[in-house]
């Protein structure tokens, strides 16, 4: 699924990365705890979060996260936007809550980058979408 389709599904606004809307993603990870993101998220996934500080962008850069979806209608501060522009990491913001954002994307074929912790199953996304 492209970021452009994700933008439509989530009725989202693109804050950074308008030129990257053709980027394809298949998996996602949702969390507000960056240490958990570092522990479990996989490269190329979406990061769905309610945090808006610059560390969200740093964490995404370290992990090669495809794009950040900020939930609950939050608008990140300028320092976060600037860092995302510098590191070329798209940020979209949606008014849906984290549960709804995750559910709406999952219903359309985006899967968790891992299914559960402690297991070995790492999702790479469904091929037919």
């Amino acid at each position, binding site marked *: 699924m492209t970021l452009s389709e994700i933008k439509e599904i989530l009725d989202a606004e693109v804050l950074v990365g308008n030129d990257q809307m053709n980027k394809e993603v298949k998996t996602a990870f949702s969390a*507000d*705890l*960056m*240490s*958990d*993101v*570092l*522990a479990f998220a996989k*490269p190329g996934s979406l990061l769905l*979060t309610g*945090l808006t*500080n*610059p*560390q*969200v962008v*740093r*964490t995404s*850069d*370290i*992990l*090669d996260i495809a794009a950040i979806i900020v939930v609950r209608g939050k608008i990140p501060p300028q*320092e976060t936007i600037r860092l995302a522009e510098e*590191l070329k990491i798209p940020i979209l913001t949606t008014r849906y809550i984290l549960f709804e954002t995750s559910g709406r994307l999952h219903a359309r074929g985006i899967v968790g980058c891992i299914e559960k912790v402690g297991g070995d199953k790492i999702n790479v996304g469904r091929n037919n979408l």
Partner: protein
Amino acid sequence: MSAEIIYEDSFPVEGGSFTNAGHVSSRIKTILKSLGVGNDTVRRASIVTYESEINIVSYARKGTIKIAVTSDSVEIDAVDEGPGIADIEQAMQEGFSTAPPIVREMGFGAGMGLSNMKKYSDVFEINSEVGVGTHVTMKIVSL
């Protein structure tokens, strides 16, 4: 016998500099990529460097992150001048944290840092002296 070092450098990290936290790790990641280090090794080295940097910023007055790259490994040394850790075993437990609210607001300080650093390293050593500082050595061996 250990492999020859092909790159080494050290980077200062300022304690309490929350806005910039992570810029050393981003830089080290870029350097490792440009050296042609494998993706998985770059990823693991970047994660442990980032957690180390967050720890120095969160707890110490100042510190240094050193990296040494060989053809088959990346070694990271995070050395700080700070309060030190009295009970390392307790600090290593997932969920144990002494982080102040500002660290938690950034999405850290949930007692995952040291265990993440250990999880992603092939060799993990930590030494600390109360009132002096902490030294963490991590080695990541390329597949």
